[in-house]
């Protein structure tokens, strides 16, 4: 199945060059792949995996290993950031 994978701020360095202009990458993953499995596949530094959203909804750390993704989902991740 296809999902959209987005990495922002410092995490964008983990995207292929061609995806950095949009912070977004469409990827093919096996059906039932979890949020944690996608994060692991990209070798993202755990300390930088802070704000994890699926379709804009926050997924708390304890739920990431059990949260299966569905076709068309948008998984977006930020390091610890803030603004105002």
């Amino acid at each position, binding site marked *: 199945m296809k999902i959209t994978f987005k990495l922002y701020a410092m995490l964008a360095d983990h995207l292929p060059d061609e995806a950095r202009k949009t*912070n977004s990458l469409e990827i093919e993953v096996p059906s039932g792949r979890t949020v944690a499995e996608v994060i692991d596949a990209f070798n993202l530094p755990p300390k930088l995996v802070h704000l994890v959203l699926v379709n804009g909804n926050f997924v708390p750390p304890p739920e990431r290993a059990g949260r299966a993704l569905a076709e068309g989902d948008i998984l977006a991740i930020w390091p610890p950031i*803030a*603004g105002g």
Partner: protein
Amino acid sequence: MAWNKKILRVNLSKGTCASEPLNMQWAQQYLGQRGLATKYLVAETDPKVDPLSPENKMIMTTGPLTGTMASTGGRYSVVTKGPLTGAIACSNSGGHFGAELKMAGWDMIIFEGKSPKPVYLWIENDKAELRDASHLWGTTTWHTEETIKAAHQDPQIRIASIGRAGENGVLYACVVNDLHRAAGRSGVGAVMGSKNLKAVAVRGTVGVGNIRDFKAFLQATKAAKKVLADNAVTGQGLPKFGTQVLMNVINEVGALPTRNANDVQFEGARKISAEAMHEKRPGDGKSNLVTNAACFGCTIACGRVSQVDKNHWSVVNSPKYWGATGGLEYENAWSLGAANGVDDLDALTVANMICNEDGMDPISFGATVGAIMELYQMGVLKKEQIGIESPFGSAQALIEMAHMTAEGRGFGKEIALGSARLTKKYGHPELSMSVKGQEFPAYDPRGIQGMGLTYATSNRGACHLRSYTVASEILGVPVKTDPLVTDGKADLVKAFQDATAAFDSSGTCIFTTFAWTLGDLAPQLDAACEGGWTLEKLAEVGERIWNMERQYNLAAGLTAKDDDLPKRLKTEPAKSGPAKGLVSGIDKMKPEYYKSRGWSAEGVPTKDTLARLGL
């Protein structure tokens, strides 16, 4: 005591400057800056005063930590009655001006009356005098700074001034210091202009002494700086990406007010985000962002310094905009961009420069442009009235409206009124995205419910800096709460409001609170000045300040009816994102909030509450 214990009272009608002692008893009850200056305003003025009359006073005020070695200890505030809102106004700014004022030996300046001709206040340590500013009137803040520094032959003078917006009575004019820092909201610059006061120029070489326990102060400030450095947000995220990193976050969670809050997600958000500011442009191969910058004493350095492409259509014939200068913060990028559907990063940067140059609040200006664009789309306003085609998304219209408002020409005189007055004039008051006449900032209350209550109950009109529940509802600081529900938000907003009032009264920056709590602030204050400052006392002082401001507003004639949101947010559901189908739950949260505050159902603090807080 970190205090100079000295107020400078400037009577502009008489042309006099006089020194008087700071009320140290009040300093123990109201801390400093926001709290202490508001106490003076309450004591000395009628809340029903016309904000732009000589009877209104304007106070420039520091906190006990301003000018000290505490991290971010460079803040000052401008406190007055706001012309945009008719409510208490307190606008906070960084840069170096506040610290310089403190280092000149003053804690606060109270301006009263109105000068018969344009003047500026010149302060050199304990010497203070009013000087003629006729040659500066009609010029920008940038020109004013340059001219005063040249006249005094001293580049280290720090200056807070108004541009043409403040002179022309733009109701959201700000006071700009250090070229691109601003006491931005509620129209404090218009009050300064109404007094014929063009600028305050300060040179202070006395320094800040009177630290109560210097050894403890060194230890406390060092420990607090380590907390900021070790925190991923204040140590890494804010310096590198600034507040603008929020653009993609808030868009993703479906809370980015777009095209005058018709939508909650903006398809052009990525193009105007922090990530885009770091990228090389196709035109000149350079990035919009040049570097970051810090205010006085700050160890975070979230400020943006930007430079636009010299060949960009908006500046190709205006070399004065070619240099590196203050860049886009999140609020400005939103208000000038998403709020109007404009996704041209360099155009937004230039519009922001114009706001700095002539002293206008980009939030209120940009949101007013959004309302105008909607009226244009509806056919209520025509090109002939505005002077330019003004559909949503037009960067040309945005830039032209910034120029005409700053210069006070043509339709700019109407843009100067703000969205509440303008939309009412044209028969559509429901299109003003404001509370108490002040435009709300970059978080849609349909997608972040706590921010709806924040806007509705903010004492200075809609504002994010009175209780930034985004920290909790979106970013998880200090704990994550669900942005889509109303439960628990009354208590959350109250806690944020009280803590923020304490931080705003200390001389430090609210951005420290992404890492600090009142527990980190208390030992720094306690070592700096007498008063037995503890976490508990700071929370109590914050609550006292909030209720004092509320009492001022009630006396000014505001009521519970003014604690409300624009109809659109209560009746038109979000069209996309996680909040799709939701409206603001303000009507449920408001009574819960009044109860949590110890106020009556009409939003009036009860006798018990006032007695408990010593008011």
